[in-house]
Every structure is written in structure tokens, then in C-alpha cells.
């Protein structure tokens, strides 16, 4: 009679991809395994006698070396090796050196092949591991989307069902109004040759036609909003909500994969998703009639976000949503200030920098903002904006967005500048960069217009992009990021990034996410991009000659993985005193640990790439 191998089963369950096998498959595999006590006296002989085979480290430590003795990886408990030869049929060339004696399980080629044939998940895991693409396996999702997920994870195309109602840009305003009356709609798409060229809303008719006393016979293209923000049918309602909140719009044209109009999504469509916290939160914030009411509503954000994040399977969406909540609160505070002190005396832009700018905010992110002002303001006007900066930054702090310790806030006179003033500031950073200035100035390159004059912002942003292309400056940034240690030590083991009692912890923000942001920012500065979001930057960089496709994709996957991991960690330490961004790799599941190593390895490679490409100049 065969024993039940309970101990080995338990181990295999914690050793992906064996956890993906069925109970019977795992049981069968356990009974086929050979366990070897590996030490310096038998390692060569054993390796020769059993390869090709899959080896699973149960205990001890071993170094995997190339034929010429270069270290590939230090192997520890739960690590797998030997599978590349099994998959490719090529001979085994790597060598193994024993660091500490231990037990290694051997799974013969026959058994490996049987398991591959009977389990797709098992086979896929090894193919991905062999291609070093473990990160594409996001196995650690918090909750299944469809069963318990938020209704905002539904696709836009599921909600927009009626055929799109469109007019040609040469239709008259009166025809447009009649069409909207007949169809009972509050906005209409303006479409020429199946291409969306604009959008016309009830409000446009009121503000731009009636109030201005325009002739109803002129063409709609004179009064429509040209090149409006759009969304694709394959994006989620949450994406739509975020976009509408950030752009401060209520109508969002929907396009299909070929850029043809599919229909219109309105905020009423979103409000129907009643049970969704983000919708309730945003509408509650928008309804607040006073600063106090806004602050009161904002106190619910952490709890709402907590339960929302638990149900989300896209961690990046949580960062985007938090950024749009901060945007909403900022606009409300500006509105309250204007009610007390009169409307803005000149053109301006409220700028969001850093994580709000990149839309990867967390609940512990602090404020990074500033004001871009029109030229030649008098004392009184300057005082108005100084008051605005104080009012909004204080207000945000009361709403739970902590003040910036580095004082990058619109309440600081240094962060309220004209276009020329900001350019002067950027120029001083790019031409005579001290390390500290360099560190700070990176925050300023990730900017977004939260409220204010679009043209002013665009002009400013393009100037800044030009300055950012300076090779001397990029060289300095490259050297700065090369100093950030990737937390992989010798032998590819995790290395703690903290000091004192936390020395085992790894800060996945400073030594992970922030580093990816820095690397991607360098490439996008070089390319002159004005986009602040890291994933969107990578998307725009797909055509780049400097960053190859493979690295581009690897960086995106590493970013997504680390964002997900950070969110999970933050949910786990919710309400405790534990560090929000630093975690102990030993507390992770085996798969997460392997993925984290893989992410850091990508970072290390890309960091070297950046040094080679940019570090030599300047």
C-alpha cells in the first residue's frame, strides 16, 4: 500500500505550479519523486545521473552556474531548476555548486512530460518561466471580478447599447436641437466620414448659442467641442468615471476598435451603477455645499476605498480613482474659494504633480501641486492666488491628503509661478543640477492640469518637455537613478532596504515602483512626451528605437505587478503601524516571491540599460 505523502503534498501545494495540479495529479507526482540529499561529495555525480529532470529545492542552498562559472542564481527552498533542458531538449550545460547541504526532489523527464500533458496550467507555467515571463501570470488577484467585483468593472460597450446618434458637422444648429429633442438626448455626436469630429451638448446650445445670440442657421462645427475626450468600448466603466471626473465632463463619446463612434456615455449612465462606492463617493463630493461638508464626506474615503480595492482586480485602477477623487476635491475647494473671494482675476492652471499627476496615488500619498499663473499680475491678483493656494492645500489636508513634507504645494510662493517663472525654475534644474534638485524636479515632470486654462497649460507643458530633452540633464538623471539599489543582492537573493529592526524589509516603492517611474520618465523626457502616466508613457514609447519592445513590456508588467503587490500589502497592514511600502519577502507566497525576484531582475537590467544609453553624456 502506498503512503499518502501528506508532508510532501503540503510542500507541493505551496510550490507553484504544483498547486495548479488536481489532487490526484499531485498525489501521483508525489509518489514518483526521488529525494536526494545533495552535498559537495555527490552533486556532480547526481546531476549527471538524473538530468534532464526537474529539480525542486526542499532545503539547503545551491548556486546555479554557467559552464564558465558565472553565477545565474542562488537556489533556495521552493526554487525550481533544470526545466529549460526538459523543454528544449538541449543538453544540460549549467553546473550546480553546493552552498549548504540539503534535500532536492527530482522529477524525471517522463513524469514531467506526463504532468505537462495532463495539466495546461502546469505546462504554461514552465513555458512562461522559461521565457522569463513569470510576471504575466497575475495569479494573486484579490477577488474574482465577475462574482463579487464592482459593477464599474463592466465594459463601456455593455452599457452603451443604442445605435449612435450623430450629425454631420455641416448640419445647422437648429437641426441639431431638433434631433436632440426627437431622440430625447442631451448631447449629440458630430461625425464626418465615420470619424468623430466633435460633440454638442445642451449646455453648449445654452452657453455658446443662445447666450451669445448666434444665428440658428450656422453649422454645428462652429459651436461644438472639437476633438473631445473619448473612451473605447473595451475599457471599463471605472476608466470612464475616472476620465469624466478628471476632465470634468458629463458626456463621453465611445469609440470602437476602428475609432468609429459607438455611442455616448453620460454621467447618468454611471449614476445607475448605484451600488458602486466610487460613484457614490464622487457624487457625494460633488454635492458638498461647503468646505465642512466636503471635509466630512472625505472622511469616508479610506473605508470606501478599502472595500472597493478588495473587490478590484486591477490595482492600477485604484490609483487612478484616488487621483480623480483628489482632483474632484481640489475643484470643489477652488469653487468654494471663488464663492468667498470672487472668481479668478486672471488665467491660471492648478497643477497636479507627482503621484496625483501620474495617477498612481495611494491613501498615504501626500500632496504635490502648484499654480501656473498668467503674466504681469499685480499685487492684489497675486494675493488672490496666494489665498487660493493656502485655502486649497489646507482644505486637502483636512480631507485626508497629507501636506507635502518637501513643500511642493501651491501654498508655497515658490510653487506659484508664471510660465516664464516655471521655465526659469526648470532651466536651473536642467543646467546646474544638484542631486537634491534633480530628485525634486522629477516630481515636476509628472504633471497634469486639474483646473484652469487648457491653452496656458499646453504651452507650458510643451516648453517643459523641450527643456527635459537636454542630454546633459538626462545624463545626470541617469546617474541619479543608477544610485538606487535594486533590492537583489549577490546570488539574486532579496536584500533588505531598511535599517535597524526592519532590516529584512524591502521597500517596493522606493526601490521598485519609483525606480520604474524614474526609468520610464527618462525615456519619455528623451522622446519629448507630455504624458504623465507611467503605463501610458510606455504605450507611447512602443515605437521608440531607444527602448526595445521586450523591455517596454517587461517594465509595464513589473509596474503592474508591483502596484498590485503594494495594494495588497497596504490592505493587509490597513490600520496598523506597519510600514506601508516595505514588506518582508518571506511573508509572500512562493509565486509572489518568485515574481518579485523576477520584477527586480527586470529593473536591474533596465537600470543598466539606462546608464548605458544616457549616463555617458553630460
Amino acid at each position, binding site marked *: *500500500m502506498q503512503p*499518502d505523502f501528506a508532508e510532501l503534498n503540503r510542500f507541493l501545494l505551496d510550490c507553484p505550479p504544483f498547486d495548479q495540479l488536481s489532487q490526484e495529479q499531485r498525489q501521483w507526482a508525489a*509518489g514518483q519523486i*526521488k529525494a536526494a540529499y545533495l552535498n559537495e561529495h555527490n552533486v556532480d555525480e547526481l546531476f549527471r545521473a538524473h538530468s534532464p529532470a526537474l529539480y525542486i529545492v526542499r532545503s539547503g542552498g545551491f548556486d546555479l552556474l554557467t559552464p564558465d562559472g558565472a553565477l545565474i542564481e542562488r537556489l533556495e527552498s521552493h526554487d525550481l531548476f533544470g526545466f529549460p533542458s526538459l523543454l528544449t531538449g538541449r543538453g544540460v550545460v549549467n553546473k550546480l555548486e553546493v552552498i549548504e547541504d540539503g534535500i532536492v526532489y527530482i522529477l524525471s523527464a517522463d513524469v514531467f512530460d506526463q504532468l505537462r500533458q495532463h495539466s495546461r496550467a502546469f505546462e504554461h507555467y514552465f513555458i512562461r518561466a522559461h521565457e522569463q515571463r513569470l510576471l504575466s501570470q497575475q495569479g494573486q488577484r484579490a477577488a474574482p471580478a465577475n462574482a463579487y467585483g464592482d459593477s464599474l468593472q463592466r465594459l463601456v460597450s455593455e452599457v452603451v447599447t443604442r445605435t449612435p446618434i450623430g450629425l454631420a458637422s455641416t448640419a445647422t444648429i437648429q437641426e441639431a436641437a431638433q434631433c436632440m429633442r426627437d431622440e430625447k438626448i442631451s448631447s449629440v455626436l458630430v461625425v464626418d466620414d465615420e470619424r468623430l469630429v466633435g460633440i454638442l451638448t445642451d449646455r453648449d446650445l445654452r452657453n455658446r448659442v443662445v447666450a451669445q445670440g448666434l444665428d440658428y442657421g450656422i453649422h454645428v462645427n462652429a459651436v461644438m467641442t472639437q476633438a473631445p475626450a473619448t473612451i473605447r468600448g473595451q475599457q471599463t466603466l471605472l476608466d470612464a468615471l475616472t476620465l469624466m471626473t478628471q476632465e470634468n465632463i458629463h458626456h463621453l463619446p465611445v469609440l470602437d476598435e476602428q475609432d468609429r463612434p459607438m455611442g455616448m456615455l453620460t454621467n447618468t449612465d454611471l449614476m445607475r451603477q448605484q451600488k458602486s462606492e466610487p460613484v457614490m463617493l464622487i457624487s457625494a463630493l460633488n454635492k458638498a455645499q461647503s468646505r465642512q461638508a466636503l471635509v466630512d464626506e472625505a472622511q469616508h474615503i479610506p473605508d470606501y476605498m478599502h472595500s472597493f480595492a478588495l473587490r478590484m482586480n486591477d490595482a492600477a485602477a485604484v490609483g487612478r480613482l484616488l487621483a480623480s477623487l483628489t482632483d474632484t476635491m481640489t475643484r470643489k475647494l477652488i469653487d468654494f474659494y471663488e464663492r468667498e473671494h470672487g472668481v479668478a482675476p486672471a488665467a491660471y492652471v492648478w497643477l497636479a504633480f507627482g503621484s496625483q499627476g501620474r495617477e498612481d496615488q495611494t491613501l498615504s500619498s501626500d500632496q504635490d501641486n502648484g499654480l501656473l499663473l498668467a503674466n504681469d499680475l499685480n499685487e492684489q491678483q497675486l494675493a488672490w492666488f496666494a489665498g487660493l493656494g493656502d485655502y486649497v492645500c489646507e482644505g486637502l489636508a483636512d480631507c485626508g491628503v497629507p501636506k507635502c513634507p518637501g513643500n511642493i504645494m501651491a501654498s508655497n510662493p515658490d510653487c506659484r509661478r508664471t510660465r516664464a517663472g516655471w521655465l526659469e525654475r526648470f532651466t536651473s534644474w536642467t543646467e546646474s543640477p544638484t542631486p537634491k534638485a534633480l530628485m525634486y524636479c522629477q516630481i515636476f515632470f509628472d504633471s497634469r492640469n486639474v483646473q484652469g486654462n487648457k491653452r496656458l497649460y499646453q504651452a507650458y507643458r510643451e516648453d517643459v518637455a523641450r527643456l527635459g530633452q537636454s542630454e546633459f540633464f538626462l545624463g545626470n538623471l541617469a546617474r541619479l537613478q543608477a544610485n538606487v539599489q535594486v533590492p537583489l543582492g549577490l546570488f539574486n537573493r532579496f536584500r533588505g532596504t531598511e535599517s535597524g529592526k526592519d532590516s529584512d524589509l524591502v521597500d517596493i516603492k522606493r526601490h521598485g515602483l519609483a525606480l520604474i517611474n524614474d526609468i520610464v520618465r527618462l525615456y519619455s523626457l528623451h522622446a519629448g512626451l507630455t504624458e504623465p502616466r507611467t503605463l501610458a508613457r510606455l504605450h507611447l514609447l512602443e515605437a521608440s528605437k531607444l527602448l526595445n519592445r521586450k523591455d517596454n513590456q517587461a517594465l509595464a508588467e513589473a509596474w503592474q505587478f508591483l502596484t498590485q503587490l503594494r495594494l495588497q500589502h497596504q490592505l493587509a497592514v490597513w490600520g496598523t503601524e506597519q510600514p506601508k511600502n516595505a514588506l518582508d519577502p518571506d511573508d509572500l507566497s512562493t509565486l509572489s516571491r518568485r515574481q518579485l525576484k523576477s520584477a527586480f531582475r527586470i529593473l536591474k537590467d533596465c537600470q543598466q540599460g539606462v546608464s548605458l544609453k544616457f549616463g555617458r553624456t553630460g
Partner: protein
Amino acid sequence: MSIWLGLRRYWQRHRQLNQSWRAHRYIALDLETSGLDPKTDQVLAMGWVTIRPPVIDHRSAHYFVTQVNPELKQSPVVHGMVQRDFEAAEAPQMALAQLARELQGAVLICHHVQFDWQFLQRFAKQYQVKLQPLAKFDTLTFEAQRLHQQQHHIARGSLTLKACRQRFHLPDYAAHHAFSDAVACGELFLAQAYQYAGSDDAPLKELLK
């Protein structure tokens, strides 16, 4: 048995004991018993596995429940066996015969081999089976000697299977079960043997001293 046969057996054994320990076959075994006294208590289950250094082959793993109606004393507490487990019991004769075949020419390994061997012998006799291992190796005695030679004070509890394994940095096993304890004991033996005689091809008899 004739004198000649006895002499030949003695000579064969002598020759085998002089061969390298690594060339031998070992059986790591553990018993579950209803108590501590071989005269009055029963063997409830046995698990064993074959070792050819440095490999423990799971395909040679065996586990037999040997009593249908055991007198359960403290054993359920120790091994977590319950009445249900015994319903799958197989004829002890068959299990013992298989063990006897595998022990032929092999070295029996247990943690506290004297204990298991006394139970085994009485149990085998009951079913007219003769167990004749080439030799017996005790991981507990070996460890006691090793600590003694290193002038360690041997503290209470420092010779349990678990404690011995920890000194060799072998993994902690949660389960207590005749089979997993047999594997645990086999792994401990490999660690001990390689540390003691890994570098040279020491004869088996060196290991058994």
C-alpha cells in the same frame, strides 16, 4: 544450519561490511505502536522506504496498517490514528513478507532502532516471518556519539528526531506518521553519513561502529 553454511554467511557479511557504505541499500523504517512495551503492546502500522545514497525513491514507499482491532492506548494521541484508519488494515503477513524480502542484504535504519527492532522481531515471529537485515543503523545512537565526541552536553530532548534534524538544517515536518517519520529518519541518516564519511569511500562497518 551446517557449519559451512554459517561460515559462508559470516564471510559474505564480513565482505559486504567492508564495501563502501555508499554502495549499499538501506531501509528507513518507522512503526506506530499501541504502547512502549514490545511484550504487551502491538504494532499498529509500519512505513518504510528504500534508500540508495543519496536517493530516497518514493516509488519504493510502503505504508501498512497492520491491526484491524487494535487496543488503542496513547497511540491516537501520538500518531493521530483513529478507528477509521484501521478499517483499511491489510494482512500483517503480507506486509511482513514484503519487508523481509526488502531487508535481505539491506541495512535497517530507525531512530532508536532497538525499540523498533524488538517490536518487529516479536511481530514477525508471530507470523513466522524471518527478518534478516545485513545490519542495523541507529540515527539516535549515532547522534549521541557524535555530540559526545564534540564534547557537547546532551540536554534533555536534544536527541528527538526533530532536534537531530534541526542540527543538520533539515526541514521541519509537521506530520507524525509512520511513513513521514521513516522518510525523516532516512534523510537524517543521509545527512549524518555524508558528514561523517562523505569525502572518502568509508566501508559500511566504519559507519556502524
